[in-house]
């Protein structure tokens, strides 16, 4: 199997692999940084000093790339997730429609359905989530 054949068959894998790599990097970076911030705040408090406001702000907010599941997200993030996933579902559905006769059309269908389910989940979280 040449590189061209391999790429032709598995090009779509680059998206989930990239997503997994970004999620892993984001999770590990966020965990290490949160620990450093908390240690610093503790050191300030132990010395009876006021921690700098930007450090407190850093402790209070989540990075856009923080993929850890325990971190609470603001309520409007579900609305934004719904919009993003809906747009992705619509985009991949249109893509599927254009290439529906090709062998690789299934990849578009899979992504469109996945994004649709994610959009539905985000909508449910938005409607039924904790106020």
């Amino acid at each position, binding site marked *: 199997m*040449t590189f*061209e054949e391999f*790429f*032709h068959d598995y*090009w779509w894998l*680059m*998206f989930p692999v*990239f997503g997994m790599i*970004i999620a892993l*990097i*984001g999770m590990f*970076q966020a965990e290490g*940084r949160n620990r*450093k*911030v908390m240690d*610093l705040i503790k*050191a*300030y408090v132990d*010395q009876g*000093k006021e*921690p*700098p406001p*930007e*450090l407190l702000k*850093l402790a209070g907010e989540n*990075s*856009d*790339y923080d993929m850890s599941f325990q971190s609470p997200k603001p309520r409007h993030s579900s609305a934004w997730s719904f919009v993003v996933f809906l747009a992705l579902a619509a985009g991949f559905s249109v893509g599927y429609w254009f290439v529906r006769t090709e062998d690789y059309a299934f990849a578009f269908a899979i992504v469109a359905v996945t994004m649709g389910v994610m959009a539905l989940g985000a909508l449910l979280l938005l409607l039924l989530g904790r106020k």
Partner: protein
Amino acid sequence: MTEELFRDFWWLMFPVFGMVMALIGLLQDGASRDHIIENARHELERK
């Protein structure tokens, strides 16, 4: 074959560009947070 591959997958340049931008954003976000932490550490050691 390379030309054929490009003809089939030229549109991939858009999502790949998005992925590169996401990666740059991740690195820049991390650098700015590290900068704040380092500043706070220096401030603590200086006081």
